[in-house]
């Protein structure tokens, strides 16, 4: 396989990667080697250090474990339409688990800022506030108070 040019996005961080056919990877001039270690496990090495890294594909990205921390990284070939990589989660809020809608705090058309509570769910006998991931306008609400909602279903959209 010829060298691949990829783009990775983890939250607000974006990186261009060049992957040669024998596991040499370059990010912004820094060189790494990557080798498979077994199911879900990789050895990533640079001149200075190496680490065991664990990866699974889950929902719309790769979940990656490095040294006690987990990152969700979305990967696409460089040049693929940028909009494809924008996570659905960026503008849609969904329930993380089956839950009951305790109260809908925000209204359609309302401006919300990052971290503001838009919805309160109840699950596992706990109140779970659902907060806006970023500043925006509530463009749609797809649930009612008292409704039982399933995970992954969009409850609120923020434009």
């Amino acid at each position, binding site marked *: 396989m010829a060298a691949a040019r990829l783009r*990775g996005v983890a939250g607000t961080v974006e990186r261009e*990667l060049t992957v040669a056919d024998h596991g040499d990877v370059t990010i912004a001039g820094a060189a790494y080697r990557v080798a498979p270690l077994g199911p879900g496990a990789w050895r990533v090495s640079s001149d200075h250090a190496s680490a065991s890294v664990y990866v699974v*594909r889950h929902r719309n990205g790769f979940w990656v474990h490095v040294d*006690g921390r987990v990152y969700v990284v979305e990967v696409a070939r460089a040049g693929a339409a940028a909009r*494809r990589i924008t996570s659905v989660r960026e503008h849609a809020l969904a329930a993380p*688990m089956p839950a009951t809608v305790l109260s809908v705090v925000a209204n359609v058309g309302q401006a919300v800022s990052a971290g503001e509570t838009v919805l309160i769910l109840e699950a596992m006998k706990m109140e779970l506030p659902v907060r806006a991931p970023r500043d925006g306008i509530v463009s749609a609400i797809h649930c009612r108070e008292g409704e039982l909602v399933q995970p992954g279903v969009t409850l609120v959209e923020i434009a």
Partner: protein
Amino acid sequence: VFSRLLVANRGEIAVRVIRACRELGIETVAVHSEADRHALHVRLADRAVPIGAGPAGESYLVIPRIIRAALDNGADAVHPGYGFLSENAAFARACAEAGLIFVGPPAAVIATMGSKIAARRLMQAHGIPVVPGDAPDDQSDNSLCRALEQVGYPALVKPSAGGGGIGMRIVRDAGEAAPALTGARREAAAAFGDPTLYIERLVERPRHVEIQVLADDYGAIVHLFERECSLQRRHQKVVEETPSPALTPALRARMGEAAVAAARAAEYRNAGTIEFLVDGTGDQARFYFLEMNTRLQVEHPVTEAVTGLDLVQAQLRVAAGEPLRWAQESLTQRGHAVECRVYAEDPAHDFLPQAGPLLLYREPRGPGVRVDSGFTEGGEVPVHYDPMLAKVIVHAETRAAAIARASAALRDFPILGVRTNVPYLLAVLAHPAFDRGDVDTRFLDRETPAIVAAMHDAPVPDAAFVAAAAAFLGDVQAGASGRRSGGGSTAPPDPDAADDTRRRQDPWDFAGPWIGA
């Protein structure tokens, strides 16, 4: 001991009890809800009995079904674990009436200790220090306000039933009294069905230090030293350790004696824990009886690590009528142990509990590292129960070495598929105040916002992008050639998730959103 024992619990504690039974040659009967039919405790037990639907109220809390499962399967004893029915006097009584040995104290002791006011009065009567306060029989607002004035401000209003901080109110002056009493009464009635309140003086920066006790049927009682449990987030313990960095040898000896006296006053049997509130430091620190937990504690393994005892086996032997094997003088603390509770919760979103698949789950190993868990890779975290995934317990020569070992073990514990609190635990272990041992029960509630903010600011390492890219290309290749080799991103399938597995293995899905883009 016994020939067959039913474990009336799930998750890591059910696994823990089953393993202890296996070592003693006792057959085990697991009970499980529909949501747990593939759980580890079900696989490890000699027999497994379904007892109902996922919600605990329809399975693990239904006393007649558990008694029926025990009798139908010829069990002669029942271990309740912790939580669920473990401190339910009616369950202990139902076991006794069915001719089953309940591995725990007599029902009457559970009932007395379940009432905070009754326990407090009993301890006071036996000269064990309790937090200065008042528990008036007259529960009118007037009477409770008089009690507040007498105890002095700031004071704490507490419900007699239950725990977990529910219904507790801090009252800083007389003006706050009326709304605090109304709110506490309402919450206590809703949560425990008992609105009875009492008043304690507020200790501003208390430590939570508890003493493990063991008592047999013949009047022998020993204590197994302390566990420091001050690191709590919203009344939920997060990290526990022993020895406590706050206890001097003299204070430890006094608290141990008080704990044994408390167990004697309660006519206690089996393993139990006396919780104390510690005010101040050094030999002059004061300690007060808070409550007694009439069961095995989640954090029992740190005590096992430093004393060398197996607490579950000790529980089983005591329940079978054996005398204690240890005199107090023969018990010592060796080294230092730390337990970290790994929860499926998202620190970035207000510690929202997480349910979902454990696509990748690899427990750490190494000298002095023990992991107690009810999960394996490919399993599923159900929505119905406490989201604790595992307890990482480490033991080392010194406190510093134990903290370093705990950090290393947590960094080497990849869990993918659900968010966990591991990064939070690592930040707590690295906190300078924890390093100094300078914490109180409200420390984490004060510091958590800053800890979580610092976690957000951590950079994403290049290695994360490199491995994701390799997995991306590996999946594309595997999809194209119709096979998967080492290093791919797909974890072993969950037996319940046939659809999901098919989807993950579909090469069209690997190409996924980029097709035709």
